């Protein structure tokens, strides 16, 4: 009950964020976005025809009216069909979002798990060669551009000049085997690039917790290392970890990995959104923007509830 009430309050408090996201996207993508008047006109249009089309597109309305209409369409989930392909927006998203999630999830999960693992090794052996090696390697990893990593992995694993083990590009998935063969190289590149950042982040969090007073107390009472790690270090590190992981989820769902999708020619939601921006495909944009804002409000709610679950000092008020 407490949680339900809290959620309702929190969702209401999320309205300014939704308005902000929709407003900025409206401003950039619609108001200053591509002008579609001439696309819809035949050759040598008369001024009357231009006028007519602009009225249809709503370009003659005042700014606030147009924004209100935009918000109304998002709020009523009235998206219609894509202007470029004619496909229903709902089916477009239903087709592309799962692809993005399937594409990103393995790298996201592995990148975080391995990051925690390496961070633990480094933090537990602070100052040793293992720490220096891990932190040195993550500094190198952080200095390599994602694009460079993708190309290098493609050359090494997919091209004829390397091992040639995996398809060079595309997403032709009909079975789990197909999935593995298409997802491996993008996953390797994602993990490679994320690992440096994640290791550094998690090491800082873990070291911070390791030097807390209550860890010293636990040691002074002869707590075995496994329990010390779980109860004193991990449980107390959960807030920054939850924050990092949960707030990545909207990006995974919405932008997928635009770069990977563009580079490997994978039909995910990131690529679709990017194309919608470049072509001014408003129905798609509206849907994605609405979804983004909603996901962020939900992520905020989720993190608060999870904070409460891991830390009794947090109260849901």
């Amino acid at each position, binding site marked *: 009950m407490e949680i339900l009430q809290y959620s309702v309050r929190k969702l209401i408090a999320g309205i300014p964020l939704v308005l902000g996201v929709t407003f900025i996207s409206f401003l*950039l993508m619609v*108001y200053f976005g591509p002008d579609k008047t001439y696309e819809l006109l035949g050759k040598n249009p008369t001024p009357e025809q231009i006028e007519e089309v602009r009225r249809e597109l709503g370009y003659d309305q005042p700014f606030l009216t147009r924004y209100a209409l935009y918000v109304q369409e998002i709020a009523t989930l009235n998206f219609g069909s894509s202007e470029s392909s004619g496909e229903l927006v709902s089916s477009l998203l239903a087709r592309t979002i799962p692809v993005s999630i399937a594409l990103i999830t393995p790298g996201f999960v592995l990148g975080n798990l391995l990051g925690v693992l390496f961070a633990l090794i480094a933090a537990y052996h602070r100052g040793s060669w293992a720490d220096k090696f891990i932190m040195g390697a993550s*500094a190198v990893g952080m200095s390599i551009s994602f694009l460079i990593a993708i*190309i290098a992995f493609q050359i090494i694993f997919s091209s004829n000049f390397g091992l040639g083990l995996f398809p060079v590009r595309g997403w032709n998935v009909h079975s789990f085997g197909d999935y593995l063969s298409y997802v491996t190289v993008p996953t390797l590149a994602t993990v490679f690039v994320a690992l440096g950042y994640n290791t550094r982040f998690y090491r800082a969090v873990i070291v911070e917790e390791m030097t807390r007073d209550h860890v010293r107390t636990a040691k002074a009472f002869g707590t075995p290392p496994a329990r010390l790690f779980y109860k004193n270090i991990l449980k107390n590190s959960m807030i920054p970890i939850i924050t990092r992981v949960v707030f990545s989820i909207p990006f995974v769902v919405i*932008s997928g990995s635009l770069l990977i999708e563009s580079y490997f020619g994978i039909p995910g939601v990131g690529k679709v959104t990017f194309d919608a921006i470049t072509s001014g495909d408003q129905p798609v944009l509206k849907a994605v923007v609405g979804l983004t804002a909603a996901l962020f409000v939900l992520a905020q709610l989720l993190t608060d509830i999870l904070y409460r679950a891991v830390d009794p000092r947090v109260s849901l008020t």
Partner: protein
Amino acid sequence: MSNGVADLTANGSELDSSVFGDSLWGKAFLKFRRDRAGMWSLAVVTAYALIALGVWTGVWGTSWADVSGAKWAPISAEHWLGTNIIGQDIFERAVFSTKTAFEVGLVVAVLATVLGAVLGAMAGFFSGSWIDEIIIWLMGVLDSIPFYLLVAAIAFSLEGNPYAMHIAMISTFWIGTSRLVRGEVIKLKSLDFVEAARATGVNQLTIIFRHILPNTFHILLVQATITFVAAIKSEVILSFLGIGVQDGISWGLMIAESTFEVLAGFFNNFLAASVLMFGLVMAFNMFSDALQDALDPRTVSG
């Protein structure tokens, strides 16, 4: 530790009179000088900066756009790193791109840091008021729009403006700095010297910009280096997506060019841009870390 708090107070009041004469900066300087990795990285960054300066003043890198050889010419005395698909000299292009990287990095780092400092200081000083609320709201909103999509939207709404990429980066990169500055200013504003200035009726903006903001310089400096790196790294990806550097050449454009060259087995373009870029980013990252270490009053070795 408890020491840190005492130090902070002392720095606060001393810094108020002179920013650079203070022991924090003096100590940081000495500490940085002793940091071997930091000094090496500074040397490397300086070397890159000199290359960029040479391009900027027209000493070298002038013929990056000339078609001076055959398609995909191999490495030779004439073309140190070979040529690209239309016969342009890769070495010249890679050198010229160094200037592009510095240009993007500096413009974005300086402007984003200034913006972050100003908005962060305002939010922190007026924390709890509507000014703070609005700035926090703005940060939250910009944070919730996926970066590349925001950049794409800005780039397209500015219709091919060559600075669309810069503007896009600045409009998101200020947020991190702003959050840090806001937190620091909230701490600083309760310190004695600020209370004293307030009690004597000094104008609020004067307090913010003359008395408080100079005390966040150490944060700003580190943030500027972090932003610089983020800008160069983003440039590569944006240029690949076609919304990055519009005229001239950059490592990102070279890598974009090379994406199908590598599948044909020609790696010079890719390697030249990647290695040069890696060197600069790595050195800058190390420089940034060393700077952060040197300026952090709390760090203990080990």
